């Protein structure tokens, strides 16, 4: 049972890390726009460059 002295704190530490990460996410506003984030992942990075260089009318 001595191994518990190592394993229980280790498990708790990992859980705490998850909790801290969650609280940080929440604070930095990552739960504010779940709809937008869901579709943002499907965007291409940039529109094709050649047409962007054309002078706008």
């Amino acid at each position: 049972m001595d191994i518990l002295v190592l394993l229980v704190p280790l498990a708790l530490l990992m859980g705490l890390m998850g909790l801290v990460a969650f609280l940080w996410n929440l604070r930095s506003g990552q739960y504010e726009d779940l709809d937008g984030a869901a579709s943002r992942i499907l965007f291409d990075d940039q529109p094709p460059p050649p047409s962007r260089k054309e002078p706008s009318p």
Partner: protein
Amino acid sequence: MSLIGRTAPAAAPPPATPAPPRCAHCGAAAPAGARFCCTGCEGAHALVQGLGLDAFYRRRDVAEGTLRPAVEPPVVDFAQHAVVQKDGTVVLELMVAGLSCGACVWLVEQALAAEPDVLSARVSLSARRLRVTWRDDAARANELAALLARLGFRVVPFSPACLRATEDAEGRALIRALGIAAFGSMNVMLVSVAVWVGSDMGEATRHLLHWVAALIALPVVLVAGLPFYRNALAGLRAGRMSMDLAVSLGVLAATAMSVSEAARNGPFTWFDGATALLALLLAGRVLDRAARRRARQAVAELLALQEGTVTLLGADGGARAVPVDAPRPGDRLLVAAGERLRLDAVLEGGDAILDTSATTGESLPRTVMAGEALPAGAVNMGAPFTARVTAAARDGSLAAMARLLERAEGARGRYVDIADRAVRVYVPVVHAVALATFLGWWLWVGVSWQAALVPAVAALIVTCPCGFAIAVPAVQAVAVGALFRRGVLVASGTALERLAGADVAVLDKTGTLTEGQPSLLPGDWTPAQLRAAAGLARSSRHPLARALVEACPDAPAMPGVTEIPGRGLMQGGVALLGSAGFLGLPADGTGLTLWFRADADAAPVAFRFADRLRDEAPASVAALTALGLRPELLSGDAAPAAAAVAAQAGIADWRAGVDPAGKAAHVEALRAAGHRPLMVGDGINDAAALALAHVSAAPEAGTDLAQTASDLVLRGAAPLSALPAAIATARRAQRLARQNIAFSLAYNLVAVPLAILGLVTPLIAALVMASSSLVVILNSLRAERDAA
């Protein structure tokens, strides 16, 4: 919403009938042979292509027509809303309406990023909020806003009201509590399961594990339970027992007993039950809140679009746009044709034609003479006029009405929902049982008081209304979400429950049963004449001219048209379209007529307009009757007009000429007679009645006051048709909530005797709680299936 959803194979149209042509930009029906429905869309399409962003059209997923650029975007000075930062960059926050899919977000961000001086543009899809930063010049704000308007998005400055709806501090606190409770329950479970299965575990190890569990659970119970403790205290102060009180007592009793068991090294602790209960209940609350928040944001979006500016005339005669709350009494305003008057004022000179349907319910425009008072909320149907402000916005009649509404809202806030009503009986019974169990074991059986506490608290825990507390929020979240997708915005927490109980439907006439704006009636004109007249009318903002354009949207604009404000339109010095007097004809007496001739010698034809009954009104009224709601028509308009609409809509019981106070009094009288009236109205004159009614609804096109006063806002082109469906959904949700509560009670009938006999271990309690909650949640999901 989702882009993934669109990859499903679409139903192929039957080959025999080709699909009607669709506008390449907004997707609305386009005239045969044309790629676009209007010149605005053509411009927008060219703009998108010029930016190299045509990928948008392959990805967009928006309702047809929502992206059609407005003919004349509203004049707002965005520059004064732009904020210059310390480092010289400028930040502007806008609310973007019409933003409904990921592709729209992409288009807006990329279109702005293509501007050379823009540093960043970031859109939040759920808040419809755009934050754009650029270098140097605050005046660029107007150009950037105009760019979005040309793409078909309506933008307004992000107002404090939008912010209130978006910034949800309480919701965020709930999510934080949920995260903490979830962490706690999982880690406590890690220890508790070891205790449950470790029958060969030594006493010392068990003692250690109990204390580890306590170490995790105590802070979690303290922090994550705060939302419940606060509500319970608030309820106690107000002298009532709430669901939160039951939850708080259960959680705190379980924790306290577990600490005492850990101290005396008993066989089991109950920390896992206390934390799991918190996590589960918080999950229910968070989901319920998220569903309601979406609806609240949509309402705030509607309200923000109505928040306009007024045109202030300076001492030097110059005009400038200012926010509504800037003018002081005595200031002079210029009220443009088609503009809604937002302040109390008197007319300075000449006369004015006002549409007062929002303030009195009259459908025919009224002529006001110089010096007469102009009611705030009326729409200018004629020429632009100047008016002298008599009261600043916060002292005016609209603000007084808003204050009245707040008071009425407060009264409705005292409505006790079904869960709290059940708790009033449930809590005393449960606590009496727990107390009797404790006394029974201690005094009668004669065990130590700590040992007697175990079955008593076990009884409290298994009866702690887990399924019970989640029964109503789960159903609400599902039903509110389903209604949201059908265009019914439910912002108030108890609205669904009240809607389910409504037994009388009181309907306003103008703008509710009718469309609230003039539309062209059939007449003895030819399509070619209509097309020519609509081409002329494109140059005017007059409501009748707009109705004419609406009747023939593909007419090309005529060149060289000049408007004589309030009278008509001329081309090449010849009067072609306007009032009878303008074309040199004898006055015809009816207010809603435009005369037209193709050239100076042609015979004039009349285009007559009327406020038409909504197409879906008769069917919706019939559906309401079928649901057991007695329909009534309550109109501020004259008797003949009200009678005609009542007959067309199939309403037997109608009242005409009712002023706002009369409407409110009628609703109060209905309530006093024991009815539960559902009030549907759109005008400022309906607001008081809406706020007093048992439950109320306003169409999307209604005034902001009416929407604020209402529990539900009905969106879409046929708002009335959503109402019967909403009632059916509300009743179904109510039925499911009752089933859930009944089920939770039945569960307790089995679990409580076991707890009293001391047979319930933490393992059994956890199983009982989890399984009953699961059944309740699964049952709640049925609210969605039947509403869809």
